[in-house]
């Protein structure tokens, strides 16, 4: 009897601290699978950002660096410039990547820094207890938009893949989700490609994963997947936004 599914080697045995049903865990596994499949654990260095995934340095079996909030891609740039043969990825939330880290994100992207960026968009600041994120939906109730996000005062969500696809340095930008097995598989391929691109020296690759936060959304894990499907996917269309190989640029929604 063969084991056809087990914990990837690139995940340590430390139990994850995430809330029950939080899809951060699924994405962790997909990243680890990509590292396993490409056989690069020994030369991979991950950058943990500040957000619920801050402690992912304990979970990934490769070397890890914990970066200041928002600065993961600057730290990753330093790591990559120091050791270009290493495989560097960042793992960042929406607050980290698209609020405080906006400048670092835009500029790593426009520099075409040869990095793999895993971006967890859960439309909320999970770790600090559920404040509005730059990606919170219009009308969404959060701890700091108790009456729903009012676009008049709190502005509109930032659509990261759309924004970054306008930049010349970006090699690959795809938005995926992990709400069902089919989408998990698409996400797996996208993440692997984002790593493969780095090995091929193609430049900046980002995978945006629409993810859940059952705790701060105030929903059960299963309800959260539904909320994501009903609210997030329509606002944040899935698909490849940019792929210098395939010539896809902006708005292409083919999966």
């Amino acid at each position, binding site marked *: 009897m063969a084991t056809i599914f087990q914990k990837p080697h690139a995940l340590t045995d430390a139990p994850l*601290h*995430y*809330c*029950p049903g939080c899809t951060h865990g699924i994405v962790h596994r997909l990243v680890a699978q990509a590292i396993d499949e490409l056989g690069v654990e020994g030369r991979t260095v991950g950058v943990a950002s500040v957000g*619920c995934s801050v402690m992912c340095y304990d979970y990934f079996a490769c070397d890890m660096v914990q970066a200041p909030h928002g600065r993961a891609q600057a730290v990753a740039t330093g790591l990559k410039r120091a050791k270009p043969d290493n495989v560097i990825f960042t793992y960042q939330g929406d607050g980290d990547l698209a609020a405080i880290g906006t400048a670092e994100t835009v500029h790593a992207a426009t520099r075409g820094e040869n990095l793999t960026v895993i971006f967890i968009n859960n439309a909320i600041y999970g*770790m600090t207890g559920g404040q509005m994120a730059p990606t919170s939906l219009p009308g969404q109730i959060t701890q700091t938009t108790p009456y729903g996000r009012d676009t008049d005062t709190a502005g509109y969500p930032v659509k990261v893949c759309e924004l970054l696809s306008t930049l010349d340095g970006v090699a690959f930008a795809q938005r995926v989700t992990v709400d069902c097995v089919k989408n998990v598989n698409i996400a797996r391929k996208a993440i692997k490609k984002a790593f493969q691109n780095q090995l091929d020296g193609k430049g900046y690759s980002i995978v945006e994963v629409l993810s859940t936060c059952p*705790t701060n959304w105030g929903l059960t894990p299963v309800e959260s997947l539904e909320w994501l499907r009903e609210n997030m996917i329509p606002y944040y269309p899935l698909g490849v936004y940019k792929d210098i190989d395939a010539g896809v640029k902006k708005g292409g929604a083919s999966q």
Partner: protein
Amino acid sequence: MVFAGFGGQGVLFAGKVAAYAGLIKGKEISWLPSYGPEMRGGTANCSVCISDEPIGSPLITAPNYLIAMNLPSLERFIDGVEPGGTVILDSSLIDREISRGDITVYRVPSSRLAEENGLTGLSNMILVGKLFHELGFCTDEVLDEAMQKCIPQRKAAMLELNRRAVALGARQ
């Protein structure tokens, strides 16, 4: 007094009710929460001081009263309880024996009682009921007023359930 348990069991709320009762009685009071190193789903506890004197450190390491809602919390605090102190624990979740002879221990199967009495999630208030019954430091009216302070108007239905839980606890 220390209220301790998992996050989500309502220990912070229970502590707040106790604090308000103290406040109504004109005491000096303080309420201090503390969370375990896990950010999510870990342990949570709060220190509540009720005193006639201004309160120094609100962090209690040696409580007179310990309300323990799970085993890790009991284990964390039991040795610190002041000699002569009181421990009230949820015996439906904690089955450890307590070897100390210098303290009073009340075992209330509050989780089971809550389930059985249609008071799911109010195990905490059953223990509060028991606590105030033993404490005897304020009248039922004061405790009721305290609950009113802690439960917003629009959740009036909750208030009723809380009252029942407290009453139930007091009878244990």
